[in-house]
């Protein structure tokens, strides 16, 4: 053995990369991508004023190319639950959950679970791409019982 390192993720990326992570998280949690245009969401919000809404911010996140991402929003749904991912005023990524018949605590839990899955998908996409670029070959890849992803890679060096 050589070294064991534990890394805390930082989600710093452009909007397309964020969207890829959202799509991955949505797929893993059985959600469907609804739409990505903010203006449509504003109209929907006006008509659903009775719903509970909860916002969760992703720690250590930043959506780069801020001007491009300012009006972007991606919405995923599952039944009556709607999650929207967008960039807030400070450039951080946030997840907003809303749905009929759910308490704020339930919505917060759903939003946090999605934010975590999104972070996992973001890190997976990034690590997999960089390992491939570095010339590593994947030996094994599996999802563990605790929902963690284990990747074993190898390369030969002169």
């Amino acid at each position, binding site marked *: *053995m*050589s*070294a*064991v*390192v*534990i*890394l*805390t*993720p*930082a*989600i710093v990326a452009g909007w397309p990369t964020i969207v890829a992570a959202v799509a991955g998280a949505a797929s893993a949690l059985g959600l469907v991508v609804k739409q990505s245009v903010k203006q449509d969401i504003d109209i929907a919000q006006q008509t659903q004023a009775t719903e509970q809404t909860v916002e969760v911010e992703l720690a*250590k996140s930043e959506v780069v190319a801020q001007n491009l991402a300012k009006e972007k929003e991606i919405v995923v749904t599952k039944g009556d639950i709607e999650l929207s991912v967008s960039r807030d005023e400070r450039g951080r990524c946030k997840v907003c959950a809303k749905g009929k018949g759910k308490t704020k605590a339930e919505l917060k839990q759903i939003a946090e679970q999605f934010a*975590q*899955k999104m*972070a*996992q998908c*973001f*890190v*997976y996409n*990034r*690590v997999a791409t*960089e*390992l491939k670029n*570095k010339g*590593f070959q994947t*030996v094994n890849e599996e999802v*563990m019982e*605790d*929902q*963690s*992803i*284990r*990747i*074993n*890679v*190898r*390369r*030969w*060096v*002169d």
Partner: protein
Amino acid sequence: MAQHDVEIVISKTGEVKVHIKGVKGKGCLEYAKWLSKIVGSVREQKLTSEYYEPEVKSKIDLHQQLNDE
């Protein structure tokens, strides 16, 4: 050629545990540095015995002389 193995575990919260194997000396720290740039920041780092092994293997030739007695 040396075989470099890396085991990466991405927890459900996105935290990453990296186990670098087969890389001797400071080479494993270069991997750690590279991965921390990709993922975020280092929270914890443990060096194992292999880190302290020399990077370049010294070649030892053993000559056995058989003397007829």
